[in-house]
């Protein structure tokens, strides 16, 4: 949460729910999640950070992501959650503090020049919402061209990205080139990484040693020879293992398969339709 903008002298700017014009402080939720500011404090006095506690349990103190809320600095707190018990004409600083009453979230000094009658209805705020200093030195703050209570301090064009893309790249070639480069770069890096990792795990020395042992056996020699020496080592291993398996399980040794699948029916009460169907009453003759 950030203090985002304030107006000291309000003569013909925004009105509160009572139709009155008074100083206001805008707070901005700079995060992308809802934040409940109930229980936090607003103050104009560094010696008394707990001057005004924002009431808890009010649904309106739950500030949605990237949304603003206005507090009226009219020194009339009995008017509701959003009316604080001080005004900005007498204040030197605005301090926003966490619910513990000690940890300062954000603070901003009030330039005495802003209290001059020539500055009526001119607000002071962050140039870009939520961006800038939180220590009170005013970095990122400026006198704004227009007051913008509860709205963005700088205009944001929602359709900026696609619009900009259309102007920059009307035929889509730049996007195609750029995006394909990114896809290729991502997958090329993965390629190189896993190529290096595979070198660690393949251990060529051990494999060579193993293959010598296998080639020394007559059966292993026979298989590659039969295929013109083209069979890979893995195929040789597979052939040997398959042959051994079939030799062990003699009933699997078939020169020709019959391709006939025999299903042996087994009787059970669960698959007996006579057991499952509703029986008709027998008629006595």
């Amino acid at each position, binding site marked *: 949460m950030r203090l985002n903008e304030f107006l000291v002298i309000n003569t013909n700017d925004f009105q509160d729910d009572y139709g009155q014009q008074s100083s206001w402080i805008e707070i901005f939720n700079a995060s992308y999640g809802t934040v409940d500011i109930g229980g936090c404090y607003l103050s104009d006095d560094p010696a008394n950070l707990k001057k005004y506690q924002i009431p808890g349990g009010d649904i309106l103190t739950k500030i949605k992501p990237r949304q603003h809320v206005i507090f009226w600095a009219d020194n009339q707190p009995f008017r509701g959650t959003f009316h604080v018990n001080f005004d900005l004409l007498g204040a030197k600083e605005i301090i926003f503090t966490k619910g513990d009453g000690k940890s300062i979230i954000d603070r901003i000094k009030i330039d005495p020049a802003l209290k001059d009658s020539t500055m009526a209805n001119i607000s002071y705020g962050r140039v870009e919402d939520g961006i800038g200093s939180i220590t009170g030195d005013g970095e990122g703050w400026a006198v704004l061209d227009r007051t913008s209570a509860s709205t963005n301090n700088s205009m944001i064009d929602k359709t900026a990205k*696609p619009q900009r893309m259309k102007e920059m790249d009307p035929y889509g070639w730049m996007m195609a080139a750029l*995006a394909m480069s*990114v896809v*290729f770069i991502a*997958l090329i890096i993965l*390629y190189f990484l896993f190529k290096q990792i*595979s070198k660690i*795990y393949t251990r060529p020395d051990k494999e060579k040693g193993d293959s010598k042992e296998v080639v020394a056996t007559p059966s292993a020699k026979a298989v590659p020879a039969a295929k013109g020496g083209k069979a890979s080592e893995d195929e040789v291993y597979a052939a040997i293992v398959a042959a051994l398996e079939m030799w062990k399980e003699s009933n699997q040794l078939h020169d020709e398969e019959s391709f006939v699948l025999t299903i042996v029916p087994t009787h059970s009460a669960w698959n007996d339709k006579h057991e499952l169907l509703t029986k008709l009453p027998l008629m006595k003759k």
Partner: protein
Amino acid sequence: MDKILENLQTFWSFTGFANFTTDYLIMICFGLIFLYLGIKKDWEPMLLVPIGFGILIGNIPLFQGLNVGVYEEGSVLNILYQGVQRGFYPPLIFLGIGAMTDFSALISNPKLFLIGAAAQFGIFGAYAISLAFGFDPAQAGAIGIIGGADGPTAIFLSSRLAPDMMGAIAVSAYSYMALVPVIQPPIMRLLTTKKERLIRMKTPRQVSHTEKVLFPIIGFLLTAFIVPSGIPLLGMLFFGNLLKESGVTKRLANTASGPLIDIVTILIGVTVGASTQADQFLQTRSIWIFVIGACSFLIATFAGVLFVKIFNLFLKEGNKINPLIGNAGVSAVPDAARVSNNVGREYDPTNYLMMHAMGPNVAGVIGSAVAAGILLGFLG
């Protein structure tokens, strides 16, 4: 008697017959064709049957205000549709896909990653064509992703870039995925010589358990750092794969790859189908989406096969890749890989390309998720 007639008249006005128009009839015919292709022809039945029946559900002419339609806020169908609209079904499907997928083929031959990248040309080719047809960049991005041949990715991206076109995009993506065995083989034959089709690839080496565990961790960290907007898809894909490969979370992996993905597939299929209500779907732009979608599949297949041919120029004899696996880079797991295998076996019945084609196939899934992240980053 008058009261009875009046009630009957009111009842009649509530029925589908009273609100019937030819648009609904056309959409019901679409639904029936999907069901026919799924049940009778066995084309992607897991997708076409739920979508086909969803089209029937969504195209019963309704009396407005009954609060049953998919677009009526708070209706049961609308609540189920939130998973599509808000995009939380696609990452859940990716979780299941990750838990089902064996990346061994890719790990054992990492150069297959590049084929998965090349096939993503389909996405950006379709993006350029869409712009030429007057779609705005966000809509063009959503249409382009059809070329990723990945239904969940298409739904995820279109729900963010062009929610009003999501129904047509999703149906188009799933339809062309089902038609992969029809679309791809002619292009593969056209671009390859007989000699190339007979290339036998090296048997993939065995991949160690450590490599399999490292793959999802490294894969996620790298791709997510490059394209953070793809985290929902990439994160779930690699997480699902880690559940499978870690060996210590079998129950979780089984749930993700079994009941969870089945439930989400049912929900996504039915609700995407139901979202094709005649008044939303039957527009000229839907026809263009289908036409451009077909182009994206053609471009992706072209790019994949051509890339392998060019890549082979730089590979030594014995290490060459059969260009018939180039088509598999479009994802559409595992149908595209099956197409590679079937076409390969037409020319050499003993040349099984399935295992090799699974490499670019799963690389294509990663590639299309990365591409979706890029489009979302630029246009979202």
